[in-house]
């Protein structure tokens, strides 16, 4: 089976700075794929690039950029807009500002349907009410007539999710959907996304910097560092046998109950993310890596410990000290 | 992009500087007396048109007065009106605005109300009525415009003061026990001057345009003073046959006001980028 979304060698630059360099990623139907990394590593930009939503000053290049087998690279803005909201949908980090303050929830939801499927406004509103109920919003009929400012942050994010589902998309990209929300609301939203995923067979690309979220929701994980996907594996493999030094460092920063005792120091990664310019070569992590060698500045090997596990590192696995 | 903008600033500065020099050195620039009538040489066209005479570069008006001399002296009136009005209205507006922004509360409410009331008063109509009642002279025009054109100074000074008032160094001055007048003069005023400089250019341009309009309507600068607005009014009766009589002063007025606006626009951009850096 081919992947629903297939990205290979994605480069994105803004002026003289490279935001994403050679990133590769595959999202299969019906799976939740988490894209993790610290802020500024290029994960949001990657998501926007797949949706064709990059700002005007960005330059996008890719070896492969396919959605359901179809090449997205040559599509015009108009053709892309036909896909967006219909077959691929996206929700964002800021539920407070992502809805238009001037229109009611119902009108903003209905227009997705009217744009892609046509039909009557009445039917679109019915569909909206059905979906509001689906994302567990009480009295959906009343909510349709409300304005965004009358809703809480958690409710707005639910509305955003419901709106994204209007045309039954195959892919939902969720860019840090819970970061701006209270912890209890976060859990509810994640639960909701997981349920929707199972019920609707939706593929979800969930972008987050929170490994806790990854552990709770992901089937597969891709780790991004300085514009590159440095490691990609099923969630269990990644947590139990991380290979890339950055992934290892990242996991050591998270307290895991049972593995860590009170009083033990948490891990940290010394140093800073380098500025990546177009002429940057080699591994971007090498200045911070404890195992770094001279040939880390050259081309980096892609290693595959198993069929569904890949990472980018010059150091042979046998030379890596198990930590 | 930056080059484009600063080009505007320089062009504006050049136009304003040039007009200022012309205004200052008016007597040296023209061999003719701007008030001397010579009825036998009426409405001579400018030198580049047919019938132009080399001794009158821009021709003569309906009373045979040299147009270049009148134009050059007219620059004096425009610049004088512009600068004096800005000084008067700036003094009024900044005092009100700073008071409102600094003290806040009731005082601010009252000052906001004064600004609202002032905005509702029809500017040109009241200026015309005042000049008509008090009698037209340069001083009256300056005083009238100065008393009417302060509201933008007040609005900007008020908002800027509010912002500065809450900054740390003002709080530091408070806690150091500085007096209110000291804080206003030393801590607040110097820090709100840049937006006010932009307002000053806008108001100067507006004052010059208004003076011209008042003089055009016969209730501004009294004849025989060579105000550009008055020159247009006097030329109006001849404009269908000799269009240049209104084109010469009109274009001068237009260019001067455009120059001042360019200067203000460039200044605004300069200050904006300066603040970011």
């Amino acid at each position, binding site marked *: 089976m081919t992947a629903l979304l297939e990205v290979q060698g994605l480069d994105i630059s803004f002026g003289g700075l490279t935001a994403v360099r050679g990133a590769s990623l595959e999202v299969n139907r019906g799976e939740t794929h988490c894209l993790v990394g610290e802020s500024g590593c290029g994960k949001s930009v990657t998501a926007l690039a797949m949706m064709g939503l990059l700002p005007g000053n960005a330059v996008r290049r890719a070896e492969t950029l396919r959605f359901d087998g179809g090449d997205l690279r040559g599509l015009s803005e108009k053709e892309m807009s036909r896909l967006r909201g219909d077959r691929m949908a996206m929700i964002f980090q800021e539920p407070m500002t992502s809805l238009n303050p001037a*229109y009611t929830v119902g009108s903003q939801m209905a*227009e997705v349907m009217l*744009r892609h499927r046509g039909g009557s406004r009445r039917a679109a509103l019915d569909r909206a009410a059905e979906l509001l109920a689906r994302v567990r919003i009480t009295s959906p009929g009343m909510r349709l007539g409300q304005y965004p400012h009358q809703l809480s942050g958690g409710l707005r994010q639910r509305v955003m999710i419901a709106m994204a589902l209007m045309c039954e998309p195959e892919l939902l990209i969720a860019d840090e959907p819970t970061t701006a929300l209270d912890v209890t609301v976060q859990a509810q939203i994640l639960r909701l996304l997981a349920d929707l995923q199972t019920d609707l067979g939706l593929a979800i690309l969930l972008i987050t910097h929170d490994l806790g979220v990854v552990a709770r929701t992901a089937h597969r994980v891709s780790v991004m560092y300085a514009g590159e996907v440095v490691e990609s594996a099923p969630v269990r493999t990644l947590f139990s046998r991380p290979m890339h030094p950055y992934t290892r460092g990242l996991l050591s920063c998270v307290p895991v109950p049972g593995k860590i005792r009170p009083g033990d120091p948490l891990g940290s990664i010394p140093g800073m993310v380098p500025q990546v310019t177009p002429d940057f070569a080699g591994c971007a992590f090498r200045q911070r890596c404890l195992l770094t060698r001279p040939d880390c500045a050259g081309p980096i090997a892609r290693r595959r410990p198993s069929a569904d596990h890949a990472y980018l590192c010059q150091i042979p696995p046998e030379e890596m000290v198990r930590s | 992009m930056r080059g484009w903008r600063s080009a505007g600033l320089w062009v504006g500065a050049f136009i304003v500087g040039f007009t200022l020099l012309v205004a200052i050195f008016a007597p040296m620039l023209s061999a003719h007396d701007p008030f001397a009538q010579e009825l036998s040489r009426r409405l001579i066209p400018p030198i580049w048109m047919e019938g132009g005479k080399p001794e009158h570069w821009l021709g003569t008006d309906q009373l045979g007065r040299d147009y270049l001399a009148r134009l050059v002296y007219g620059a004096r009136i425009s610049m004088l009106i512009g600068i004096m009005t800005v000084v008067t209205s700036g003094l009024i507006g900044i005092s009100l605005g700073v008071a409102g922004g600094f003290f806040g509360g009731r005082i601010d409410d009252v000052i906001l109300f004064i600004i609202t009331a002032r905005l509702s008063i029809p500017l040109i109509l009241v200026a015309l009525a005042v000049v008509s*009642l008090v009698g037209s002279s340069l001083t009256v025009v300056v005083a009238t415009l100065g008393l009417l054109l302060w509201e933008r100074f007040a609005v900007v000074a008020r908002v800027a003061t509010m912002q500065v008032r809450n900054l740390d160094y003002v709080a530091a001055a408070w806690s150091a026990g500085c007096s209110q007048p000291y804080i206003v003069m030393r801590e607040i005023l110097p820090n709100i001057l840049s937006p006010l400089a932009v307002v000053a250019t806008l108001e100067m341009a507006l004052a010059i345009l208004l003076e011209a309009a008042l003089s055009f309507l016969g209730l501004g600068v009294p004849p025989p003073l060579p105000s550009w607005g008055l020159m247009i009014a006097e030329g109006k009766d001849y404009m269908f046959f000799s269009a240049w009589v209104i084109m010469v002063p009109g274009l001068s007025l237009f260019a001067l006001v455009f120059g001042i606006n360019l200067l203000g626009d460039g200044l605004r951009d300069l200050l904006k980028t300066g603040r970011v850096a």
Partner: protein
Amino acid sequence: MLQFLARRLLVALLVCITVLTFAFALTRLSGDLAISIAGPNSTAADIEIIRKAYGLDRPVIQQFFDWVGRAMVGDFGQSYFFRERVAKLIGDRLPITLTLGLVGLGIALTVALPLGVISALREGRPIDRVISLVALLGQAMPSFWLGLVLMITFGLHLGWLPISGTGTWQHFVMPGTVLAFSAIPALMRLTRSGMIDAMSADYIRTARAKGLSRASIILKHAARNAAMPVVSIAAVQLGFMLGGSIVIETVFALHGVGFLAWESISKNDFPTVQAVVLLLAIIYTLLTLGADMLNAVLDPRLRAS
């Protein structure tokens, strides 16, 4: 919301009272009104008769309250010069000025809104630069001079439009254009900055993610949010245009309220001057009040609070 409206109404009322006082005080600037009315060639006896006839011999306070009391019910007295009721004089001429103002606003909006939107969508590009330069040029244009230049060009040389008067709609084209010129730069700049703010908002990204068409994104999602400041400034500009019509009406000999004001100023006809000042101030206040209410309708957040 109700509290906001009540507060705005109170301020509007206070402004009207202030202007009432101001308009009265204005005409007392010259010192002795009777002398001004009588003119320079009158005898002391003439002046005395006029003083009595117009009630100017009474204490100023009494004159003031008498005037205010009448003004409240729309009675602005008898014009000194036109020998008619001031209210009727103004009533006869107001339609012309209002037509002129609305034509001016219409032209201004037709030009300023698209230019502002284009400028915003092409921010920083050459077309944006050109448009702001044109706005700057427009701002520098002396309106009365522009009026004369248009008269020479379109009236005399091309013969497309009538030079003065109010007979047909063509008569309003040139004065309307001139009046619009003064309002275009401000309207355009506000449209531009409003659209730039709106287009960079998160909800526009959402609208794009929903796959909406570009037209719908710009016209429905961005424009609605950019409209609020534009509505306010449009009301203010219409007020300024009605006030500025005094110049335009004089240039084009349109017998509207502005022309009436100019005539009555030059004829020392104070009751008319007072009434026009008051009328324009009230119209301005009502316009800004109306804009606030319209904004409350446009912005659901304002409506609710």
